């Protein structure tokens, strides 16, 4: 398309709009302009709710650890569970910080990256879930003790526990590799895409795909 030809079409379009387009001032005057239109408002509310929930859980676990400090296995299990709660809490706080920074006056690519990173929040929970796999027993120990007053650990053979811990620790390296793969940069890898699709929402998937699109756009 030659530039001159394009300009001719556009000039005709502009003329058309100039002649036929007018503002419905009555309609514009009656719009409630003080209404907040930020589509990020609802996301902010959800993240604040998450912060409150994870903060309460962290306080509860802190109390549990302190109460059971003399029982090493309970304290260690509590510390591990609290570690993951704190990661989730810091993730939610980070998201609130990003949301507060969103200003539509900024360049489009900058804003889109921030918004889509917020929309991929589900991926953090997916990663935390997988990261919890080698230490899932700590959730069982804490839940068993707190909810049912059953000390699961005491019923186990020490030798079995040691072997079990050793086997689980072997999972850490492949798990870290696996979690690093779960990124928008690897959506072209079939198993990565299918794993993320299986465990997260379509919103998270769309956001990851768009982060890819943004990266391509910036090249």
């Amino acid at each position, binding site marked *: *398309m030659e530039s001159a030809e394009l300009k001719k079409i556009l000039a005709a379009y502009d003329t058309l709009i100039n002649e036929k387009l007018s503002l419905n001032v009555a309609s*514009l005057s009656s719009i409630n302009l*003080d*209404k907040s239109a*930020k589509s990020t408002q609802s996301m902010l509310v959800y993240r604040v709710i998450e912060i409150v929930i994870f903060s309460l859980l962290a306080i509860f676990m802190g109390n549990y650890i302190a109460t059971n400090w003399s029982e090493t296995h309970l304290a260690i299990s509590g510390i591990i569970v609290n570690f993951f709660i704190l990661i989730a809490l810091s993730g939610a706080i980070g998201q609130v910080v990003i949301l507060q920074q969103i200003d539509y006056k900024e360049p489009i690519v900058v804003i889109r990256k921030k918004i889509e990173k917020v929309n991929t929040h589900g991926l953090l929970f997916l990663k935390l879930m997988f990261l919890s796999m080698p230490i899932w027993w700590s959730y069982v120990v804490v839940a068993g003790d707190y909810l049912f007053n059953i000390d699961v650990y005491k019923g186990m053979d020490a030798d079995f526990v040691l072997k079990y811990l050793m086997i689980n620790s072997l999972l850490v390296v492949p798990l870290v590799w696996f979690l690093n793969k779960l990124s928008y940069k690897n959506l072209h890898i079939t198993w990565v895409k299918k794993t993320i699709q299986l465990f997260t929402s379509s*919103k998270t998937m769309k956001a990851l795909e768009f982060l890819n699109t943004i990266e391509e756009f910036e090249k």
Partner: protein
Amino acid sequence: MRLDKKARFIKTIDEHKKIIYKIVNAYCSNKEDRKDLEQEILIQLWNSFDNYNSKYKYSTWMYRIALNVAISFYRKETKRFAKNDLYNEASIFKIEEDANDKETVLNYHLKILQDFIQNLNELNKALMLLYLEEKSYEEIAQVLGITKTNVATKISRIKIKLKKEFKKL
């Protein structure tokens, strides 16, 4: 004071109404979505009105905000904007319908161009709208947040695709 601000705002919108009109038509294919997007853009422009940075031309500043809002709107999974106030169902735009509008070659080419822009992804739509507004590559780069060279390359590629569309005629 507020009435004065609103009057200035309406005057500004009237002067630059084409910008909102073009963006809304590029990002929304149906009438209801267009009305919703018009409102969201206006509210965002109103909220930013006092913070207008005279370093930029008002039209560029308006494009930046309106395009950001449009892309967010376009990417929403559920599009209906929750309206608490039901009075306003009318669009802010009035278009004169002309029964004598001729099906000229120019109008036909314009339709192809509009359809082409509609089919671009959100970011390329923004790029094309700015280019067609005769913004400089530097301004386009600033609004989009990419380099000038990138703007030039992308525009060149899109124009090649557009040429193919016209060649199909």
